[in-house]
């Protein structure tokens, strides 16, 4: 007899297989772009400059303490945040809409899976699975970069802290993953919002979700003469790109509590929409 956890695992597996092109292709394209840009930069450099650059990089990696050097992989992971956001938004927009559109919704509903579990599987996929795939690609990028640095350093007979750089790559990937799911939890209202429109709208769920957000912001400015809504969205965008908060203090903060409560209400709405949107 399968446990609830195993059944939930099956839902996550189904989400991954159904959307694997989206989950894998977007970070893969970003990774390739990053590597390509890096390669083109190196190609464009005169050999003397390449040597200087390598000397500086290798001495920094050798001299800096591990904790301080951790900034390098964190900086390199920055372009992955928008990729992750883009993938998540596309996924959230289509995940409850597509099966209604192709009518496979009726098949999923004929299985003994509650609507709440169906919605929760989408949330877990967004918060934990998509970032894990992006983190895997980031790790590949960092490993390729490490190997290239090692190769280039040996070409110029320079000392290179291979083990330390490898450790930094792993450290950066773990940090990226932690920040990614932390942001996922912090942005639970956005997740709930998009799932709500994905479960509700009959056409163009993305335009509905974004359009209603804009209308709410305009209404707030017009009726209440305030811009808290715009402020919150602006803060969210900055947090997404630049925010690397302390994990534990963020996890147990009031911001997180409010985000989870508001997100919970919206997810409950999405569940009801999925259940009764006929």
């Amino acid at each position, binding site marked *: *007899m*399968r446990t609830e956890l*195993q*059944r939930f*695992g*099956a*839902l996550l*597996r*189904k989400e991954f*297989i*159904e959307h694997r092109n989206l989950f894998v292709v977007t970070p893969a394209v970003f990774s390739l772009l990053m590597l390509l840009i890096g390669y083109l930069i190196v190609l464009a450099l005169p050999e003397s400059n390449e040597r200087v650059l390598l000397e500086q990089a290798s001495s920094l990696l050798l001299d800096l303490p591990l904790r301080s050097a951790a900034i390098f992989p964190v900086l390199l992971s920055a372009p992955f945040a928008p990729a992750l956001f883009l993938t998540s938004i596309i996924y959230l927009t289509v995940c409850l809409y597509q*099966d209604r559109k*192709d*009518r*496979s*919704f*009726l*098949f*999923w*509903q*004929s*299985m*003994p*899976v*509650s*609507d709440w*579990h169906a919605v929760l599987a989408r949330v877990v996929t967004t918060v934990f699975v998509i970032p894990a795939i992006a983190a895997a690609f980031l790790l590949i990028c960092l490993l390729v970069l490490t190997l290239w640095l090692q190769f280039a350093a040996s070409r110029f007979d320079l000392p290179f802290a291979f083990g330390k750089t490898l450790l930094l790559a792993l450290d950066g990937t773990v940090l990226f993953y932690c920040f990614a799911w932390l942001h996922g939890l912090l942005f639970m209202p956005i997740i709930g919002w998009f799932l709500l429109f994905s479960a509700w709208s009959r056409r163009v769920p993305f335009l509905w979700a974004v359009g209603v957000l804009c209308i709410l912001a305009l209404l707030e400015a017009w009726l209440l003469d305030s811009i808290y809504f715009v402020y919150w969205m602006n803060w969210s965008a900055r947090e997404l790109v630049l925010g690397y908060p302390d994990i534990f203090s963020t996890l147990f903060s009031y911001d997180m509590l409010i985000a989870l409560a508001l997100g919970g209400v919206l997810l409950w709405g999405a569940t009801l929409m999925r*259940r*009764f949107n*006929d």
Partner: protein
Amino acid sequence: MENVVAARALEKTYGSLKALDGVDLAISAGSICGLIGPNGAGKTTTLKALLGLIDVRGELEVAGMDPRAARHSLMQEVCFIADVGILPGWMTTRRLLDYVESVHPRFDRTRAERLLADTDIPADKRIRALSKGMITQLHLSVVMAIDASLLVLDEPTIGLDIMYRKTFYDRLLNDYYDGSRTIVISTHQVEEIEHLLTHLLFIDKGRIVLDMPVPEMAEHYVEVAVEPAQRERALSLDPMHKRELLGQLVCIYAGVARRHLEGLGELRTPAVADLFVAKLKREGNHEN
């Protein structure tokens, strides 16, 4: 016999349209029930209500549960095949079996694989690449491997050629129906299933207009191919429906004892399709 489906005064409106208008249902365990009605009569709405896919007003119990409150628990007892291919096109047959095996505690994968072995359905092809007939066969194989007490079929063979339609119902009867399971079938192709049915439900404009076990129907309704000489007498007995067939008057009588009809011509039990037309015209809802 215990009822698998019990509903009282079901109502459902879409804007100003009453899709269900006080529907009462009682479907006993072990029956094969035909839900028959014209387009827009409320068949699919009724079936969706039984499956907990829509919210309706009224009392409703399916397999001892309220579908509105416990849809996912109910789905352990109930299986469903809809009018069009609803299987996810991106899945392969093997992945479909993997998924159902993972989430359905009453699914027997070995049985599903045995059933599929009798078909031409490849295991590693995506469902969207299969023909409509194959998709229906696949869905039926999956459903037949689930030990459920109620199977709901909503126009399951629509758009299929005659070979697939025949195979579908043959497999349903020979490999699935065991006398204890209940099957509810909604279809337009009444002629194909009337020999299977043990219970008839006619629905029109959101109302049940006939609810009767088939043996009782055979006793209650009589069709007479009237001899030309008996025409006047036949019409004087107030048939519920009359039509001309190849120059011969054919009448359907409701609640008239066969002994009163003897001598009028050949007596027989009306075909379900003929009774359906007669009943709907009798209700005065449809043009001749």
